[in-house]
């Protein structure tokens, strides 16, 4: 039976937001260590939308972004997607590779793999904090890179979810580096069954709907 995300109680949403904070905090620390820069994070935003509303919710379908995508498997499953502007991505690459490295103004192979690596570290540390706290085994896929319109980057994730659910839950966190004005959005989109497991693992499995 497809449990509807709309039935989540406030306490369950708070628990998920807290879990998101723990993951994001760990990810920010890892990124900060790697770049020797201060990285701030926003309080995770949790939203429940119709699947077809997702392109609007991530910034608009026609906006052009770099997107780095991971599938998550193991005890819970879903997708994680890091999105940022191309120029901010290039500044991030420069920060990572050092001032001596000449960066192309376009995304070449080196920039792409540097960004994939940054995303890999962010998502990896997000998930490791997550899995320790929720006592779950989680694995991430290799990163998949796209530079295109947001709608086209996100639609495969939407399609995947649309086969199982009408509504999705999305956890969004922003990572901000102030000096170079870099801001990246990290989106976590668990699948419906995964979400139930997640909530059960947190010990707050009280649905208000009473459908159970």
């Amino acid at each position, binding site marked *: 039976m497809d449990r509807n995300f709309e039935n989540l109680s406030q306490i369950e949403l708070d628990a998920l937001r807290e879990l998101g904070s723990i993951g994001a905090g760990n990810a920010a620390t890892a990124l900060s260590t790697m770049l020797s820069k201060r990285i701030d994070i926003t309080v995770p935003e949790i939203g429940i939308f119709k*699947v*077809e509303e997702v392109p609007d919710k991530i910034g608009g379908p026609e906006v052009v972004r770099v997107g780095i995508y991971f599938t998550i498997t193991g005890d819970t499953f879903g997708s994680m997607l890091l999105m940022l502007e191309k120029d901010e991505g290039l500044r991030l690459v420069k920060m990572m590779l050092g001032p001596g490295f000449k960066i192309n103004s376009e995304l070449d192979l080196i920039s792409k793999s540097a960004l994939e690596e940054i995303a890999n570290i962010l998502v990896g540390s997000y998930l490791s904090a997550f899995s320790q706290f929720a006592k779950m085994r989680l694995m991430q*896929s290799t990163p998949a890179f796209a530079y*295109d319109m947001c709608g*086209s980057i996100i*639609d495969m994730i939407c399609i995947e979810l*649309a086969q199982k659910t009408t509504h999705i839950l999305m956890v969004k966190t922003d990572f901000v580096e102030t000096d170079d004005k870099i801001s990246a959005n990290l989106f976590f989109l668990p699948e419906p069954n995964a979400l139930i497991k997640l909530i059960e693992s947190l010990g707050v499995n009280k649905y208000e709907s009473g459908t159970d």
Partner: protein
Amino acid sequence: MKAELIKVKMADVQIGNSPAVLITYGLGSCVGLTIWDSKLKWGGMAHIMLPTSKGFSKNENFAKFADSSIEYLVNELIKMGSNKRNLEAKVFGGASMFSFESKSDILNIGDRNIDATFNSLDEFGISVVNRDVGGNFGRTISLYLETGVVEVHSIKNGNKIF
């Protein structure tokens, strides 16, 4: 005077009259379908996510699926006074945005969406006059209802006319 711009969202179907322009942004694995009446200068656009409505609840948004969106579009245009023979379809999108090492069904969803769209159009006896499908890039499509021209915009190729 600027022609009216009618936006078609993901899992959405819209119909318009000349000189309006129907537009949908950022198709990846989704399929953008246009059906245009060459005689009466009106038509519709669908932004399709999945191949078939079979196995889904009746309450689902019909515009998510190739079969039910096409059925709706064709029926509506005929209700308005279109003759099937004058309806011209064009099909766009169905890309594979990411390349993965492991393969699964979902990764071929673009191809499956394209196949389902062609099959369904064939069932309804609507001829496909042009297409720009597959690849690994996103597309924004605009249907100019006055001329039936579809402009495809992509980061990769700029603007192209179909």
